[in-house]
Structures are given as structure tokens and as C-alpha cells.
């Protein structure tokens, strides 16, 4: 954070801001009353959440049969949503930890929101392994602890157990990292707010921050260490999630390319979701000076890179299948591309491979509407990628007598809508109560006071 940007760099923050302007700009959004558009947004998102709650409540009361699953397709929307949300969660850690270690200054404008998004997305993801169980009230049996049931232990060979560990670790580290990064800003809020519960809360949460040199020193050290701790998680979480599939015997799942493929896909989808949210926040919260076209452009470049990796993975799967000389493997991929669910496959290909190609052009990268559309496409495409991997592999496996189809019930669709409702509701709350941009970090990259 100490290096000084030279004048060759385009300024990261526009508008000749002074630190105090930054504080006012960002805090004012929290201090004024919520706008009408916020109220409308939260009304919609909480209705979605309510719908999802009703659906999940009904499903838990009645049984998994309320989903469209069958004897052959045992997972569909549930695990698709799970992998989708875990993937979304990846960008936060990447932006905050990996880019921090690589000294990418532009991350300062987006890291707070990206991390919040990570935590919220992992919360959304965590719901699905719980509710997809036939008996969710026994979910604690997944945790290894001395118990009175024998004691019965968990199966360390099962990837689901490692999933449980990976997700809980990821959530913990991400949350701590996000919180620690927020302490200086919470102190700012504490100092600005009038007496009231918010001031008390900010005071409690800012842990007695006093802005002294020693405080900053400790803070910087902890932040760096946490970044180092979080970085391997970017790789590990989705690698472990991919084991659910890679260690199985089902053609289309049983493939060693899945870990890197999943990690690339996760970063791709996460970055795209960050962009979607940032573009909305930039517009509605008037943060054009903080989230500049330079930021958007940098993220678009990451999209092109990770999108390329994903495309490479799609292609490699076909080559591997062809080379495998296994008719089951070959059929699994022919069936993906040309079988009954080929529409899902081609939605995935066109959204994930074709749509980001427009970002090669600078004009497209600078047009926020184009970028926004592309990110929406990628979000859709990445959801379908998980759907394709899970459902098209399962629905036609080894024995043709077992081949079935799958279609979701309204309960499943409502649950998916509900998870978006939870995501958006929590994100809107985040925008109201926590500075969406890391003020303390942004102040470090201001052009103000530097020699031109």
C-alpha cells in the first residue's frame, strides 16, 4: 500500500477527491434516509425471500418428493444452486486476498462489496446442502464430534464431508477477513454517527480503534496474514466441491479436469456477479468516481481470461472423452451436446464462451450497458454449467433402462428464487449499514496531494 502511483498511471479515483470528501461521499449514503428505489428493491427481494422460505418450509414438512427428482436424477436444482452460489462467492476472496497480495491497487474500490457478496453467497450456498437432505434435522451428523450415538463417526472418504469442512472454513475466514478490513471504516462511522444504536454498534464493532500508528501497524500485519491464509482457500474450496463429482463413477462426473475447471469457473462467475452488483451500485449510489471505467475494464479482462480457461475445460472434456475409448464417457458428452438437454448445454456455451468475446474490444469494455449485459449472460451461463454437469450426466448413465428425464417443480423454482431473494436482501442491507467502499483503503490510492 505504500508504493506511490506514478503520474503515468491514470488516476484510480476520479474527481480530485480529498480524504474528507471520500468520507462524506461514502458515509452520506448510510446517513441519509433510504431512497424510494431502495425500498422498492428491498420489497421485491424480501418477497422473493419469503416465497423461498415458504417453499423450503413446505418441502421440509412434506418431503424431498416435492422436488422433481427421481430414482436416477438424485440431485438437480439443489446442488446446482449450491455450486452456483459457492462459485459466486469466489470473486470476493480473489479480489480481496489474491489481488491484495499482487498489489493490484484498483481492487480497493471493489473489495468491500466483493467480500460482502462472498459472505452472502456462501450463506446462500450453505442452505442447499442442508435442505437437500432427506432428513435435514439430522444435519449435525455430518460434523465430527464425540457423540452418544455409538459413537458413530463420519466417513472421511466421502467428499461431502470435505465439502462441509471446506465451506465452513471458507465462510469463517472470509467473514473474519471482511470484518477485519472493515474496522477502520467502522471507526469512521462511529466518529461520524449521532448517538444512537448505530453509533453504539459501530463503537462496539470497531474494537476501540484509535487510528494510532501502532493500531495501523497491527491492522496491516493482520490483514496481510489473513490475505495469505485466505488465498489457498480460493483454490481449495472449489477443488473440494468438484470432488463431489470427480471422485464418483458416473460418466461426465468422473474426470480429473474438474478441480481446475471448477476453480476457473468459480472465479469467472464470481467476477461476473461482482461486476453485475457493482454496476448497479455505481449507478444507483452515484459512485462513478470511485468505480471507474478503469476498474470495470480490469475486471472485464479477468473475465476474458477465466472465460478462456472455462472454454478450454469444455473442450478438454470432449477430447478426453474421445481419447478415453470408453463408450460411456463418449456417450456422456455426445449426450450433453446433442441429447435431450442439449438446449441447456448450448445456453451454457453461448453465455460463457461466446458472450465474453465482445469484451476484447475496448469500446465494449467502456460501455457499461454492454458489460452489464455480458455479466448477466455469464451469470445465467454459469448456473446452466452446473445444471449441465449435474443433470445431464445423471439422467443418462450406464444402463439405458435407467434413463429418465428431469423437470423442476414449482417448489424448486421458488427455492431458487428464494435464494436470490436472500442474496439481494442481505446485499441491500449491506449497502444500507456498511460502507460499500473501503474508505480507508481508497484514501491510500487517491491522487490528492500527489505531485502531478
Amino acid at each position, binding site marked *: 500500500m505504500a508504493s506511490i502511483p506514478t503520474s503515468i498511471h491514470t488516476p484510480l479515483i476520479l474527481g480530485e477527491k480529498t480524504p474528507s470528501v471520500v468520507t462524506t461521499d461514502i458515509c452520506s449514503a448510510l446517513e441519509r434516509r433510504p431512497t424510494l428505489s431502495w425500498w422498492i428493491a428491498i420489497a421485491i427481494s424480501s418477497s422473493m425471500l419469503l416465497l423461498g422460505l415458504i417453499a423450503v418450509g*413446505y418441502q421440509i414438512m*412434506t*418431503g*424431498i*418428493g*416435492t422436488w*422433481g*427428482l*427421481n*430414482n*436416477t436424477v*438424485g*440431485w438437480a436444482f439443489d446442488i446446482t444452486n449450491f455450486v452456483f452460489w459457492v462459485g459466486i462467492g469466489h470473486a470476493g476472496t480473489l479480489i480481496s486476498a489474491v489481488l491484495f497480495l499482487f498489489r493490484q491497487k484498483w481492487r480497493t474500490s471493489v473489495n468491500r462489496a466483493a467480500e460482502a457478496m462472498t459472505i452472502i453467497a456462501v450463506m446462500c450456498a450453505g442452505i442447499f*446442502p442442508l435442505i*437437500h*437432505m*432427506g*432428513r*435435514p434435522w*439430522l*444435519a449435525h*451428523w*455430518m460434523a465430527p464430534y464425540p457423540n452418544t450415538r455409538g459413537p*458413530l*463417526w*463420519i*466417513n472421511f*472418504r*466421502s*467428499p*461431502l*464431508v470435505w465439502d*462441509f469442512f471446506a465451506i465452513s472454513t471458507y465462510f469463517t475466514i472470509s467473514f473474519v477477513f471482511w470484518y477485519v478490513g472493515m474496522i477502520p471504516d467502522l471507526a469512521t462511522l462511529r466518529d461520524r454517527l449521532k448517538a444512537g444504536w448505530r453509533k453504539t454498534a459501530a463503537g462496539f464493532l470497531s474494537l476501540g480503534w484509535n487510528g494510532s500508528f501502532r493500531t495501523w501497524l497491527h491492522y496491516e500485519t493482520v490483514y496481510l496474514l489473513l490475505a495469505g491464509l485466505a488465498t489457498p482457500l480460493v483454490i481449495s474450496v472449489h477443488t473440494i466441491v468438484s470432488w*463431489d463429482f470427480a*471422485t*464418483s*463413477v*458416473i460418466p461426465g462426473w468422473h474426470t480429473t479436469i474438474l478441480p481446475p475447471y471448477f476453480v476457473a469457473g468459480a472465479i469467472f462467475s464470481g467476477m461476473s456477479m461482482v461486476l453485475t452488483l457493482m454496476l448497479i451500485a455505481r449507478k444507483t449510489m452515484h459512485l462513478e468516481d470511485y468505480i471507474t471505467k478503469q476498474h470495470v475494464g480490469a475486471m472485464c479482462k479477468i473475465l476474458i481470461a477465466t472465460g478462456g480457461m472455462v472454454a478450454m475445460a469444455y473442450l478438454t472434456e470432449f477430447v478426453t472423452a*474421445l481419447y478415453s475409448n*470408453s*463408450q460411456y464417457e*463418449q*456417450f456422456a458428452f*455426445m*449426450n450433453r451436446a*446433442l*441429447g435431450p438437454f442439449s438446449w441447456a448445454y448450448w445456453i451454457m456455451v453461448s453465455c460463457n464462451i461466446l458472450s465474453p468475446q465482445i469484451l476484447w474490444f475496448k469500446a465494449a469494455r467502456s460501455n457499461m450497458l454492454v458489460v452489464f449485459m455480458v455479466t448477466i449472460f455469464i451469470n445465467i451461463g454459469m448456473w446452466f454449467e452446473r445444471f449441465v454437469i449435474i443433470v445431464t450426466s*445423471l439422467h443418462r*448413465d*450406464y*444402463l*439405458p*433402462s*435407467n*434413463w*429418465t*428425464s428431469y423437470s423442476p*417443480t*414449482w*417448489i424448486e423454482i421458488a427455492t431458487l428464487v428464494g435464494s436470490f431473494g436472500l442474496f439481494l436482501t442481505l446485499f441491500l442491507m449491506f449497502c444500507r449499514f456498511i460502507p460499500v467502499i473501503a474508505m480507508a483503503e481508497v484514501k491510500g490510492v487517491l491522487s490528492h496531494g500527489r505531485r502531478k
Partner: protein
Amino acid sequence: MSEVSSKKYWKSLTKRSDGSISLPIAGDEFQSVPETIGADPERASVQPLEVRRRDFLAAAGFAFGSVTLSGCSRAPVEKAIPYLVAPEAIIPGRATYYASTCRACKAGCGLLVKNRDGRAIKLEGNAEHPVSRGGLCAVGQASVLGLYDSNRLQHPLQEGKQATWDAVDGAITRQLDAMRENGATLRLLTGAISSPTKQRVIQEFLKGFAGAKHVTYETLSTAAIQNAHEKTHSQSVLPNYAFEKATVIVGFDADFLGTWISPVAFTAGWAKGRRADIDPKSFSYHAQFESRFSVTGGKADRRVSVTPAQLAQSMNLLASALAKKAGVPFAVESSDTASLDTDFIEGLAAKLWHERGRSLVVCGSQDIDAQVVCNFINHTLENYGTTIDITHTAARQHANDEDIQSLLRELQSGSVDALILDNVDPVYGLPNGQDFAAAISKAGLVVSFADRLTETSEHATYICPDHHYLESWGDVSLGHSFVGFQQPVMRPLFNTRSILESLSKWSHSSSAIVSKKSDQTLVRETWGTSVEWNKAIHDGFAKISEKPATGSAFRANAVKAIPTPQETPGGKLALVLYPKVAMLDGRNASNPWLHEMPDPITKIVWDNYASIAEATATRLGIETSDVVKITLSESSEKAIELPALVQPGQHEEVVAIALGYGHPESARFEKLGPEWLEKKPTLGDNGLVGTNAAKLLTYRNGSLHLSGENVAIEKTHRKHSLACTQDYHNIEIPAALLVPGMDQRRPMVQETTLAAYERDGKLPQHGHAAHHDDLGDLWPKDHPYEGHHWGMAIDLTSCTGCSACVVSCQIENNVPVVGRDEVERKRIMHWLRIDRYYSDSEKEDQPDILHQPVMCQHCDNAPCETVCPVIATAHGDEGLNMQTYNRCVGTRYCANNCPYKVRRFNWFDYAHDDKLANMALNPDITVRTRGVMEKCSFCVQRIEEARIEAKKKGLPIADGDIRPACQQSCPAGSIVFGDMNDPESAVSKLIKSGRHYRMLEEINVKPSVGYLALVRNREEGEDKSHHG
């Protein structure tokens, strides 16, 4: 704060004086190991609790008051009265077996009824039985539920109201007395009776009435066979057929492996002639001419799809070809044989002629002319006396369709004074059933023995419900000089009475009633000393000495060619009605197990349908599930509407419809299946399961015909989806999804020809089916299988797909019935399914059918075991893959990772509301809750039972001691279970066969279930033409 914290807490005076603070939580507050008081000096010094009088009174008052208050609610009274004298042979928790005879159809197969704590819970085949030889079909298996059917009448009814037996008896005998005196017209209507005692009791009853007549009626009648033998041999008999002795078998629309006469016995006999390893030289050749796809046709070496008209022509052609060889006359009026495969029929005649005396031709037609020609063929082939026995046949009255029609006329004219009905339902089963219903009430006295209110019995003045056959004594003539005995295996559940007792009671005028004969006495009276009673009841059957029946010699002049039936005019289709394996003539319409048993050919449950050929469907623009209207040519009133099904291998000019559906009894399934938002009902638009096709039966030449009429077919605009357990039917994967140059055939079902197998002694290697023994293994070798290693081998050559094992497994393991909608959502719960594939045969329009029973394969490297996060599925040290229901949290990961997809998930809490039906549950097996996974356990309860028995005897478990439910019921003996570690066990020997393979061997999951490849008696190139 400070005030509180400075306060001293002390537990004992010693501690107080020590100054130590022992509260809030003393170290020994929760003592884990109880200690002897006094052992600890500190504890011993504890002072007795000092309680003040007032505190004591307060505490005592509180305790007394609370006990009194809580005692105010009345505790439920549970009466548990121990046996004063414990009954012999009933040990709680231990099953006893009683030999009896199955009466679910007319065949009379041997039963061993499993009784637990005084109730019958499972029917098993009796391996010593001379007819059925150990198997038991699905219908027989499921008949135990009939015992616990809540629709059964629980007491006699008089004009629809509950009555006592005395009242009913009094009223009936008074009326009968009057009739005896004035010679009234009395008609007794029963099914075809094969019980000698019942015949005797009926004769005795009818003796007193001058104008009495006994009328028999069956929808699936064998009258034509008996009448034809009357013509050709002067004997009205239903012959015994010995399929095991036949080396060439030709069937003409006789589904002898599925529904015809005695399928269990025939399957056992037929399977004996299909042993490719033990006896390849006498491997039979089986050709089947048929108009629809039957179980029997599916197993034929050559299946010829014909119209009913062509069937007759083929029989004529075969008869004339054989007559030519034998040098006897057989005149066929010149008929058009252009549409027939004359070369094949000539060749078949040559084959039959070569094997004369060792061949068998059977015909399932209701047409006497056809049966006469069939007799002529068998006579010419010298089969009488070898494969066909007419000397020691079952004493079985034949149902005469003419009689029921004349009864109807009598009823309509009002000339019948009394009508006594056995458990028959002509209103449902006759094409003019409604006329029958309208005419019944014209009879003065109508008495029914029906066990429930049916369309027929609801018109009766008196209903005197008969026992279920498991509650009553009886006998059945089996042929071969054997008689089968039926004994009650439990006390009657309801206030019912055996028909034998009722009739015997009414046989005498009311004043003459001196003693009441029980059904047991009546049966014993029939046999007297001719059978050793105790042994006969113990065995379930007895050999009797009887003189061989003699008829006249073959009357050649009775033989004439089958008249050429009417041609099917353009735009019309020839109608074929048939009984389905499970539903037969509709007698099983109240049985949910049989409704949910997938049809062996179509794999459809809970419906009947109009099967049409693909070409016909294309021509008429009909797709599967389109509702079509089938109109019988003569009258537009004779029309039914039901969904269409495109059936491979069906003749283009034929439409086939199953009988036995649309039964009023099926209305009971209205609420069947789990209740939830998107639930669709099990019943169709008519409020019933399927549609009754009895309307389309035709009465012609003195008998009711199932086929031969022409019908118009018309598409309606409605749809009715059919619930099928299998979506994809071919063993080949779709050509559009094929990688060029790859084998499109998946090797899970392997087949070969007899010629190739005799030469090589092993299977042709299909691409991936090669053995992979040399593959390295990443799995730890942590299961040494030092004791037993259970395994199973299934012979696909003899497996007919009859589904007896499916139902047997369902009953044994308390597998729930889920209803039509759930099956359509592919959530059937059966632990054992039979996969059915079509494959191209030498002729494109006549595909082969392959059946493969698939249950949990109990893999040694089970993919399900590694993925379960909570170890709910684990590997037993004897190779069993074990599922622990109460450990399962329901992630379904194991089911996803099962390459065979044999795991079943409890998507809902399946209802067990019918308390009566719950009595059929197996108490050895948990009823699973929702959200847990279940699957085949190799009947682990039977393994454990055998282990306990062996241990008690101090002997090792012998091969054959353990027979899982599927193996036990299999009529063909296709399923063999045993210890793979024992080289002498039957299963080990089968594993060494050259036909043995394991499904998906190449993925190295090492299943414990193996299959013996399907062998068809064909020339080597004969079924490979499609590969070319």
C-alpha cells in the same frame, strides 16, 4: 455485585471449616461412576440432610398434590393377557410354515404359507409340489393381501343389512324348502370348479331340486380345449402338458409362460428344456405365433407376429404340411397364404416331424375349430401319451359360455326362481353384463357367496361371504393323479363362512338339520381313507390311485381345417383382447401390489391401453398416450376409449387391449399415493384404473372370443399419460448420439446363439465386455471375505420376465406402493426391477425382447459406500452391502453414484393407514421413514435366520438353506443365491459357466451378482444379420 460475590458458599461443615468454596459447581457435582457410600471418607462424613418439619410438609404436600393432579388423566387400559396354556408350535417371533394350495387362479400351485404370531404374512412356493415345483407367480404371491382386504364383507348381509348367520340360514332354507317341494327353477352359477369336494357338495345340494342346474362361467375359459377333446377324443378334458419333455415347442397365441392355464408349472417345465450348460443337446426349439407381444413370445427362439386370421391360416398350413408327411388327409380350402412365411412353416413342420413324440403344439384360442386342428397336429406328431397326457387330467369342470348366455335368457324371461352365485362377477366380465345386472333381480331368490360387494353381488338378497382361501379347508384336483389340499392357516378374520359349509347346510330341508358339518369334515369325507390325511395336509398334496380315463381313439373325421376367418378390411384393425400377467380377468383389481407391478412387456403400471404397431400409429397419426376410441364393427354402442401405446413387434393390423381393468373395485385407489401440491391421481378420468374392455368380447359359435373381430380406431383429442417404469427401450444407444466407429451396443445384457455357444463354450466378446481381471485396483483390499461371500447368479436364458420375483420382494421387504403419479415421476420403490430391452432380430418388424432382473449388485468395491458422509451404507464382512436406515440423513449421493441405479429413496412418508393391510407387513423388516435410502439387502433377514438355525444345530449353513424371496418365488429357477467361497455351491458352479458375466465389469466395482447370458436356439448367423 460485590455483596453477592463476597458471600461464601459451602457444602458441608468440613468444607466450610476448610474455607474452600465448593459451589457454584463442585468438582464432583456430576459423579460419573457411582461410588459406594462410605468408601470416601469425606462423603461418609456428610451429615444427614436437615429438613425442617414445615419444609417437609410443604414438599410432601407438593409431591402428593402433583401426583394426584397428574393422575387425573385416565391412563389407557392395555390388556395383555398371557396364554394360560401356550399353544404348541407358536413361538412369538418365529415363523411357522403350513403347506396349502394357491387358489388365486385355477392352476392350484403348491404353497408354503409363512405364519408369524398367528397371521399369514408371506406365500412361498412349495418345492416338493408335483405341479408347481417350487415357484409361485406374482398373482399367487399377492393373494395374501386379499386376506387383509378392508373391502371384504365382514358378516352376512340380508338385503344389504348386517344379519346373523342364523337369520340368513333360516330365511334361505325356508325359501329353499318351498322350492324343493314345488320343483322350482334353481340356478347355481360358479366358476370352473376343480375342487372335488366342492363338486361333491354342489351335487349333493342340487340333488334335492328337480329343476336345478349348475352353470359355470369363466372369462378366461379353457372350454374350447375341452370341447375340442370331446370332439376328437370323446373326452372333455383339459390335458396335462409336459413342456419339459418337448424338444420342439410351437405356441399359437398360447401365453403359457405368462397367463395360460398353469404358467408356473409350464415355466418350470419349459425352463428344464433350456439348460444350455447342463444339457445343450436337448435344448428345446420354441416358435411362437402370436398377435400381440406376450411373455411367451418374448422367450421364443422365433416369434412370428400374425393377425388372428393369419394365425388360423398358419395352423392350417402347419397341419397340412404335417398331414402330408404322415400321409393322412387334411383338406384346406384354398386360402391366400401370400402373407405367411410359408418357408418357415414348412421348415417348422420338418422340425416337428423329426421330433415327433418329443414335440408339443399348444393353442390358446377360444375357437373350437382351432383347438381341433391343434389336437390333430399333436396327434399326427404322436404327442399324445408323451408330451400331452389326457389319461390323468385334473377333474375340472369346464366353463361353458353357452350356458351363461342361456342363463341370461332365462333370467330375462323371469323363469328363474332362485339364483345362487359363487364368487363370480358376470356383470363386470360379460360383454352384455349390464343386461345381466338388469335381469338378476327378476329371480325370486338371489344368494351370493361373494366376499365383497361387486356389481353382481350387490343385486343379491342375501350375501353369505365365503372365507378367504387361506382361512378355509379345500382341495383341488391337480392331474397326474395328484390332489392338492388347502388348509386354513389362521382363524377367519371376519364372521364369514366357507361356501362348503353353507351349501352343505342348505342341502337338507330346514327341519332335517341335525348336525353342522365343518368344511374340514366335508373335505375329509371326500377322501376318506384314500389319502393319508395327516401326511397329505403336511405336504399340501397327495397321490391318489385313479383309473386312467379312457376315451375313444382319435376321431379323424372330426378334423376339418379352420374356416378362413374374415379378413380385416382396410382402415380397420383386428382386435385382440388378452389377460395381463398381473390383472388376469380383473379378479386382482383390488390389489395395489399387482397394479403397481410393471407389465413384463410394456413396463406400464396402473393402466390398460390399446397397443398398436409403430407403422399403424404413424399411418393414423397416433402417438403413445393419445386417447383413442375403439369401436366394435357391429354396433357403435360397443365402443371404449383408452390411451394408445405404440408397441414394437406388434402386427400392423392388430390392436391389443388387456382385460381386467376399469373394475369398480379399483375406485378404492382414489387417494393412493403421497399427498402434495403437484400430485396427480392414480385413477383415470372414469374414476377407475384403466378401462373395462369386456364390452368388446364377442360371443360366437358357442363361446366367448377374445380375438378375431375387427374394430375401428379413431383418435380423440384427449391425452392420458401412461406411467412406465422405463423410458428408453433399446439396448443400442440412439444413433444420433453415436461417436462414429464406436460400438453402440451396451453389453449389460449379453446373448448368444446355441450353435455358437456349443462350439465355443463361451460368450462372444463384445468390445467392452472383455474380462478385466488384469486391471490394477486402487481400492484397498480391506475385505478378505474369510467366511462366507454371498453372491447370486441369474440365468437370463430361463428368466421370462414374469415378475413373480418383483412382487415377492415387495411383500418380503415391506416395499411401499406409491401410485401412478409417483411411478410416472420415476420414483417406483421396487427393490428388484426387471429391465426390458428390445433388440433387432432377423426381421426388422419382429424385435427380440430381453429381460434382466436387476437388484442391488452388492459390489465388493461399492461406489455407494465411499460417498456416504455418515456411513449409513457399509460393507459387511460377508460381502453384503448394508444399509442402515436410521443412520441415513438422505443426501442421495449413494444413489447418484450407483452405476446400476438400484437404490430407492423415500421421497415421502408413504401411507400405512390401512390397519388391516398392515397385518401383511413382515415384522422382520423395518418400515422405512421418509428421507432415507433403501435397497435390496439380499434378504439379510433370511441369511440371519438361516445362520441362527444352523448355529442351533451346530452345523455350517448348507448351500440352499438361504433362499432370498426372489429366488424362492422364481418359477423357472433362474435365480441362484449362495456362498461364492464354497466351490461346491450351486452359485459357484454357475460362476464357472462360460455364459457367466457380470454387469459393467469394466468399471471394476466387482458386483456379487452375475448373469448367465441369454441363449437362443438359433443358427449362428441368424440373429446377427442386423450387425451387417
